[in-house]
């Protein structure tokens, strides 16, 4: 009996780690891809060794679209409803602390509350998509471009990843 429990314990640990990896690859099959605009960043700043840092337009949510507690705590979960905008890029439609229903061409992304700037009346959130790891010596091509369009895949279970940058 103890033997079985031992193998069960380490088996579950393996499964957990494998599950983490597999679910990441499954996003490609089940996920919905959307395009997001980045904010123009000082090109010199974005390249850090093996990854680029990205800031997105949808990370800044004005008060008008903020349908949650006015003063949420740092790190709190917030659901952001994104809608397809004019140039096929997705824009923020609404942000709420509750999950909401979606119609066609709408997706929900889970984010963490970062901070609120009371002078500009903008809420800053973090989607966890701020870093894009790139292959060696390809950083140069990112250094030149200021504003980029990032393709993100979102899985039905909420996981997301960057598929490409252009």
């Amino acid at each position: 009996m103890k033997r079985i429990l031992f193998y069960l314990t380490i088996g579950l640990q393996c499964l957990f780690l494998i599950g983490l990896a597999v679910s990441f690859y499954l996003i490609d099959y089940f996920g919905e891809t959307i395009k997001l605009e980045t904010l123009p960043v000082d090109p010199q700043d974005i390249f850090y060794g093996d990854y680029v840092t990205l800031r997105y337009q949808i990370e800044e949510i004005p008060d008008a679209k903020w349908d949650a507690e006015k003063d949420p705590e740092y790190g709190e979960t917030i659901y952001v409803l994104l809608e397809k905008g004019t140039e096929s890029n997705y824009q923020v439609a609404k942000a709420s602390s509750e999950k909401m229903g979606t119609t066609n061409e709408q997706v929900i992304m889970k984010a963490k509350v970062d901070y609120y700037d009371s002078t500009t009346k903008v809420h800053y959130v973090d989607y966890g998509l701020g870093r894009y790891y790139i292959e060696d010596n390809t950083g140069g091509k990112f250094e030149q471009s200021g504003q980029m369009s990032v393709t993100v895949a979102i899985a039905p279970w909420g996981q997301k990843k960057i598929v490409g940058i252009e």
Partner: protein
Amino acid sequence: MNRDSLKKESLKWLNEGIITEEQQKQILNRYPAKKRTSLLLTFASLFIGLGFLTLIASNWSLIPQLGKMSVILVFMLAFYLTGDWVYRNKSARVGLSFITIGLFIFGAGIFLTGQMYNYMYFQAIPFLIWAIAAIALFILYQHPSLFVIAMTITTVGQLYSAWVYGSFYIVLFVIFVLAFGHYTYHQARGLYGYLFSVSFVIHVLVLTFSTGQGYYWLLIYFLVLYVIGDVVGKQDIRLPFKSVSVISVFLLSIIEVFLLSNSYFYENIDKSVSFMFIWLSIFVITIVLKIVKKQSWQLIDLVLFLPVFYVTFGDMFSMLCLFAFSLGLLLLGYKEEDHARVTNGTITFLISTLIAYVHLAWAFLDKSLFFFVGGALLFVLSYFLEKKRRTVKNEVQGGDGK
């Protein structure tokens, strides 16, 4: 007893004719020479394992993602399986050190996979999973070292939650109370008792400060720990729970002395009604318990749990509580000729005096005069207390000798 020192000692006995050579051999045979090889083996295997790990870690960025995954999995499985085999067939200690490395690889694996695949957690879930794995291994092997490791992972997880997410992770706390509470209660070892109560204190500190409760809620949590220690009759739980609780509340009272004298802080304390209600009920229960168990002399501990912030001049009141507690300990110690209590009373009394002195005299005295007078005061105090303590100790020892 150590075999080597016994050998030397018994040689003297032999020479003095206290024992015969035959008896010396018999005595020595009771202490077989320890197998040192197992200890060396542990280190050898640990070093080799760690060598591999650092080798991989230093070349980590060169390995492709799937390669990283397989490295983690293969190493984890290898350490677990060898560990289990060694545990059953060779040596429990070596086996457990392998299993521990396996557990650490699993923990590192969670974080590394998370980083590789860009996972964003909203709570300290990695630590939760890791803690559950550690607890499962402890349940399987029931070895204290795994208890210590599992407890450490759980506690660090709670601190991580406070640090990274600024929140109290209730799930981790529930698991802590259920799993560790169960084994601490049923196996009742002093070590488990101390670890549990220290970890409990850390958990409630995170609870109080990350959820923005008033600091005074700590009084209730510490009191709960104290009462549990009192209610559970087992010595190995009662003593750790109560002493950790009393030490924590003693430190809290010291901090209160300084905090409450700050008028800004004092005026901004949000006095909650529910606190008073809960505190009062637990406090009354504690007093009743003490009286029923005929331990009314222990009521002196409770003076530290008073919510001094309700009164004006709470800092002075808190200081009074510190003195009342330490003097109570001292007097009781002298009365019952209890050496340990006199020592504790002496230490707490000296600390209280120091605190009172710093608090009252710092602002009024010239700084160098402050230190001179303070030093002299402590000298005089410690002289008298030490003298008294020694008399008690001698009396106790003399009493035993008769």
